[in-house]
């Protein structure tokens, strides 16, 4: 303590005590004196301490005690459940209210999991409680409980039933609420030891079984559980089941080798009728399965039979074999998507139309080469068959897919033949088409091969031959177009011809000629129906088939329809048929007895009218052009199995490629992208159809982008993004589809882009834009009204700067602006400030960027209402106004004026960099009020130099412009005054509440300053950091009548005073402010300037107060 002589006002002292020298203490510890701590003890100490602390923490929380917290939490959970229930009931199609009034509480581990059970409750109108409550819960669900827990449960359950999850599952399966008594846990407890062994047995199985069979094993497990619940299960049974299981597995692996993918693709370009007829049997099957209580039952029974089948069918396998080297799931085949579509019939049909349109581009315009000479000759013998009436011929190839293939196989003629991917006799591949001999055996399209074979053992299965189909379809249409100029293609093998105007009167003859020609050319037969409209022609074809033609004259329509079953009418499917059947309506004749009104009441406006019309043979559709497809996409729901996210991504990538190809093939681009996912229902097992999708939930997400695209990269990005929205386990995905809608023709969309886009405009400028994406967003903006006013400002280069400048300058002489035309951007001063102001801020900032940031400055400059006009500028402008005179006279002063104007405008550009007061004046030239507001602002010396007439003109103009608000009064220099006023105004900005600056900024005309004031008033709090924080979320517009420099200096002052205010007490606040300001600099030119100006001041005061510099972290 001897050194007290030190006279310095601040001294540093550090504590030294013999016992506790810091260095010695740390050395001690380094010497190993530190004790090893026992984590356990610490943990316990912590636990003991934390409890009271957390309890007292409630004091500050909104909840008074644990009870009220739980009440709120429960309420929230209920709300969430309700929300989820309402949303799921929207999406779910056929979910009923089986569990209405049932509220379950799931205790412990259950199969299925509590989340799945919750899903059921959601879907079927029940409730799910996360926390047990005797008042809200009606049933307790659990699978397995220890004895102690069962006792405990009874103690507090208050007699509530304790039920196994199977109760819920069975209820769902039975679609009604079953009695819970057989599912009581008591029973389970009685069987407890038996069951434990079984489940252990099965889990072992699961582990060993190959992955592909996992689902079916689970199913079997489920089934066993169900059986067990019925009290019938025995160990022997399980063993048997296990054996079946193994058989099943073997079978599966067999099938992997032998089966071909079948068609289940759905393309948006598809022809509806065909799709319906093809898919409906499958749909029906699916719905049947849904109704069955457990789909696995079917599969199990099937397995047990199959070994026999295998033997018996081996013999009958057909001669035509398929290449079986293709791999069948997304798991094993990296090019799955490609191969899938290669072998998809529906894909063929779907994409056929594009080929057709390319082939016959003119047909949609109704122009054809005309009817061939041969038939014009025959026109002389016109019959009276409907000369003024419409006549439509419907031509349909007979079992196209089969006949095309077998036309080169004479040995197959007359034998039952069907087309299918796979000829595996046990297979679940679907027959896509069967010839008439096969149909006699009851073989139908959509049937599984194994079913077809059981009906017709000698059935020959042939594979697709897409090349031949294509060729035949082309020949078919060639013939049709030769005979008729109005052809409406329905599908590759089906078309309508409007022959009303045909020179050849005898339509039946025409039809037979066409049919004969088709047979001769393609080797396949076609049937034709002739009637007055498309509906009747189509019905007639049905009668005509196979290989025939049928004519329904107008007079016979009623008779024909009278006995026709309603099912035969197009547009009447199973559902509608069923409904009609309930009303005892089976034929069109019966349908006719019902009034249109009641039909519309029962079936809806459109369907009702359709039924009414069709039952009377009325069809107003015209044979015409193909409708534009509304969407294009690709969907795969066969063979989709993913192991991990990478598989899924890979698959998506390929799907996108496919879709992009289709888009490009159709020459369209789309804006809306929908990703559809088929998700295996949680209770669904492995589908009956091999590698099929089974019982699935359909999920979809759509994204719409502003600019149409067909780019693979964009598609992939969007698809990935969409896929991310689903948050589902990739293992549950059974189908993926990508659909593109809001289509635009690629050509016109390109033109459209050109029209709306700022892009070409930008590309021609030397200014580089940083963000291509931002610009590509602009076309969207372009469609909005806000963009329209800009047409005056941002004229396209093609329309000429000159023109635009003339317009925006509103009658001003544009002679001198011509010098600016060298740059493609319209000169800054040619922009109409009023128009720019009304643009959306994003567009303004965009344009600003192109002008290298000068626009904002310009806008604020031109918006200035303080018109302190420099002599040169003032007189120039006034002369300009009467520009004709100036140029006309060509006087010295005129030339001088023009020149000075140039100087002035150049200075506008430079101004924000050079803060020379001399330049400040021209910069604030008002573009809105080009005339000086009063004669007082015109330099008299210049004015005197002007010719007499000119002076007169100016005075006249001034008189017009002179409004009270513009009168400044005196000759004194307004700008000088202004700065003086500002200087005094800028002190003590942070004094008062609200601080002085708020008011000041509010009345200022600078957009940015007003935003500051606004944010403050909207309750950002008194500190600057929170204000800046609020600004982060705002759009910062610059612009305003006050000069750029004005705003910057005000803001600078604001920050400077704030720093001075806070530097001694709250360096943290300053730090936060500076960090925020720094982040904001990227968004506002003003704030960048402010930031740059404030940093030296800040560091200086930091050094003064803390002896160091503030650390400013890099962004």
């Amino acid at each position, binding site marked *: *303590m001897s*050194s*007290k002589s*030190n006279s*310095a*006002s*601040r*001294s*540093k*002292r*550090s*504590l*030294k*005590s013999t*016992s*506790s*020298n*810091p*260095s*010695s*203490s*740390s050395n*001690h*510890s*380094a010497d190993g*004196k*530190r*004790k*090893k*701590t026992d984590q356990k003890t*610490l943990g316990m*100490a*912590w636990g003991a*301490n*934390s409890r*009271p*602390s957390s309890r*007292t*923490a409630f004091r500050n929380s909104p909840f008074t005690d644990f009870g009220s917290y739980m009440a709120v939490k429960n309420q929230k959970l209920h709300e969430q459940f309700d929300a989820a229930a309402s949303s799921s009931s929207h999406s779910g199609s056929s979910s009923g209210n089986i569990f209405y009034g049932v509220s379950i509480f799931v205790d412990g581990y259950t199969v299925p999991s509590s989340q799945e059970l919750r899903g059921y409750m959601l879907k079927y109108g029940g409730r799910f409680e996360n926390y047990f409550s005797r008042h809200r819960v009606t049933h307790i669900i659990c699978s397995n409980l220890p004895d102690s827990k069962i006792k405990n449960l009874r103690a507090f359950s208050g007699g509530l039933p304790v039920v196994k999850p199977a109760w819920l599952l069975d209820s769902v399966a039975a679609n009604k609420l079953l009695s819970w008594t057989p599912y009581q846990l008591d029973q389970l407890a009685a069987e407890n030891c038996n069951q434990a062994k079984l489940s252990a047995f099965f889990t072992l199985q699961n582990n060993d079984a190959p992955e592909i069979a996992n689902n079916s094993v689970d199913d079997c497990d489920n089934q066993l559980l169900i059986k067990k619940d019925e009290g019938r299960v025995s160990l022997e049974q399980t063993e048997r089941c296990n054996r079946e299981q193994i058989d099943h597995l073997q079978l599966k692996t067999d099938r992997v080798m032998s089966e071909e993918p079948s068609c289940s693709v759905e393309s948006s370009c598809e022809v509806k009728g065909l799709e319906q007829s093809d898919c409906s049997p499958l749909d029906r099957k699916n719905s049947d399965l849904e109704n069955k209580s457990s789909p696995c039952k079917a599969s199990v029974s099937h397995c047990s039979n199959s070994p026999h089948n295998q033997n018996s069918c081996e013999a009958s396998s057909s001669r035509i074999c398929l290449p079986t080297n293709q791999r069948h799931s997304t798991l094993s085949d990296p090019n799955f998507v490609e191969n899938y579509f290669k072998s998809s019939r529906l894909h063929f049909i779907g994409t056929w139309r594009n080929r057709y349109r390319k082939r016959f581009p003119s047909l949609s315009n109704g122009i054809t080469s005309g009817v061939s000479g041969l038939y014009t000759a025959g026109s002389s013998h016109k019959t009276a068959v409907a000369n003024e009436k419409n006549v439509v011929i419907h031509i349909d190839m007979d079992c196209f897919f089969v006949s095309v293939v077998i036309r080169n196989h004479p040995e197959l003629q007359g034998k039952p033949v069907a087309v299918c991917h796979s000829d595996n006799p046990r297979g679940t591949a679907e027959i896509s088409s069967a010839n008439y001999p096969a149909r006699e055996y009851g073989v139908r399209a959509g049937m599984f091969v194994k079913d077809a074979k059981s009906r017709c053992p000698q059935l020959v299965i042939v594979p697709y031959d897409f090349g031949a189909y294509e060729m035949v379809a082309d020949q078919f249409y060639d013939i049709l177009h030769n005979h008729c100029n109005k052809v409406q293609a329905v599908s590759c093998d089906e078309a309508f011809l409007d022959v009303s105007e045909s020179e050849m009167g005898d339509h039946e003859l025409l039809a037979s000629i066409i049919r004969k020609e088709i047979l001769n050319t393609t080797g396949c037969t076609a049937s034709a129906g002739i009637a007055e409209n498309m509906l009747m022609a189509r019905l007639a074809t049905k009668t005509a088939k196979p290989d025939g033609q049928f004519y329904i004259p107008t007079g016979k329509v009623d008779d024909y329809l009278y006995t026709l079953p309603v099912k035969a009418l197009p547009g009447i499917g199973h559902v509608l048929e069923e409904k009609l059947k309930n009303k005892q309506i089976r034929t069109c004749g019966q349908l006719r007895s019902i009034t249109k009104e009641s039909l519309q009441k029962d079936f809806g406006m459109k369907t009702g009218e359709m039924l009414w019309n069709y039952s009377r043979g009325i069809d107003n559709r015209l044979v015409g052009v193909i409708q534009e497809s509304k969407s294009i996409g690709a969907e795969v729901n066969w063979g989709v199995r993913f192991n991990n996210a990478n598989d899924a991504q890979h698959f998506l990538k390929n799907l996108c490629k496919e879709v992009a190809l289709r888009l490009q093939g159709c020459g369209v681009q789309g804006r809306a992208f929908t990703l559809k996912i088929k998700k295996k229902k949680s209770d669904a097992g492995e589908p009956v159809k091999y590698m099929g999708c089974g019982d699935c939930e359909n999920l979809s997400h759509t994204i719409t982008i502003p600019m149409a695209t067909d780019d693979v990269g964009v598609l992939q990005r969007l698809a990935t993004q969409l896929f991310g929205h689903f948050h589902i386990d990739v293992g549950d995905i059974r189908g993926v589809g990508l659909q593109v809608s809001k289509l635009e023709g690629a050509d016109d969309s390109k033109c459209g882009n050109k029209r709306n886009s700022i892009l070409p405009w930008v590309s021609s400028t030397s200014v580089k834009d940083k963000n291509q994406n931002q610009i590509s967003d602009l076309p969207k903006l372009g469609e909005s009204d806000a963009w329209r006013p800009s047409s005056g400002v941002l004229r396209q280069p093609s329309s000429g700067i000159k023109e635009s400048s003339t317009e925006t300058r509103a009658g001003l002489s544009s002679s001198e602006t011509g010098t600016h035309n060298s740059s493609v951007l319209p000169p800054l001063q040619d922009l109409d400030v009023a128009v720019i102001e009304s643009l959306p801020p994003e567009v303004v900032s965009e344009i600003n960027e192109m002008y290298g940031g000068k626009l904002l400055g310009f806008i604020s400059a031109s918006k200035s209402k303080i018109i302190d006009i420099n002599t040169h500028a003032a007189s120039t402008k006034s002369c300009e106004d009467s520009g004709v005179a100036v140029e006309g006279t060509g006087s010295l002063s005129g030339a001088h004026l023009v020149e000075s104007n140039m100087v002035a405008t150049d200075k506008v550009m430079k101004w924000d960099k050079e803060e020379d007061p001399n330049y400040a004046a021209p910069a604030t030239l008002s573009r809105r009020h080009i005339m000086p507001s009063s004669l007082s602002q015109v330099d008299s010396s210049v004015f005197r130099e002007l010719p007499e007439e000119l002076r007169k003109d100016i005075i006249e103009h001034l008189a017009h412009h002179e409004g009270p608000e513009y009168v400044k009064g005196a000759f004194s220099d307004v700008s000088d005054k202004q700065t003086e006023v500002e200087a005094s105004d800028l002190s003590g900005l942070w004094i008062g509440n609200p601080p002085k600056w708020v008011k000041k900024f509010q009345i200022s005309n600078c957009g940015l300053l007003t935003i500051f004031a606004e944010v403050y008033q909207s309750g950002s709090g008194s500190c600057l950091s929170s204000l800046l924080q609020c600004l982060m979320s705002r759009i910062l517009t610059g612009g305003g009548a006050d000069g750029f420099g004005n705003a910057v200096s005000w803001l600078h002052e604001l920050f400077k005073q704030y720093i001075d205010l806070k530097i*001694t*007490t*709250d*360096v*943290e*606040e*300053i*730090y936060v402010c500076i960090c925020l300001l720094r982040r904001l600099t990227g968004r506002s030119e003003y704030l960048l300037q402010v930031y740059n100006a404030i940093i030296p001041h800040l560091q200086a005061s*930091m*050094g003064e107060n*803390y*002896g*160091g*510099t*503030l*650390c400013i972290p890099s962004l």
Partner: protein
Amino acid sequence: MERKDNQTPQGEIARILVEFLEVAITSVVFLKGVYPNGAFERRRYMNLVVHKARHPQLYEYIHVAVNGLLAFLTKDLIDRVAVVFLDDGGLPIERFVFKLNVNQSYSSKVQQADLEFSLRSFLIKLPLSEPLTKILPPTDCRWEIMAYFRALPQASTSKDAEMWIPSDAKQWQQPAVITPIKSMSSEPLRVQVYAEDPNPSAPKN
């Protein structure tokens, strides 16, 4: 004497401040990882988890050092208190500065709860702030508590004060880079914590 001090608002504040400093300094030392974590035990202070040195010498040092400031704090003689981490050469590696300011003219009764609430925010912020969570390199490093006086104490007002000796710690050649950690202003007390790091551009030594 002490009794009387404690009755004035300033005395009351000083007492709270000393307590706070003890906890905060321990936290800083703990967070910088100078000692193994086991050298500290968890305690509750102002409803927060804090750490207390288990080693008696370490605890003693911190406790005695900050309590020695009590008298000076009451008179508002202390400008700041720094926790300085030094390398083996005695050159500071990093400094954590508690800048203190007690309003001497404040006369009404201190709301201890309010004050504690404000000080709590420090203890919450400390474990989260970036400069503190950076663990020092595991070289042989030392640390000490250093107090900056506004003026030299006139005479030894208490025995505690005599334990403070002038520091001979080396200084950085360049002004430090300051990273604010937390500032608080709750009448009549103002406290700021910031980290000082050597200017990276400055030459070592």
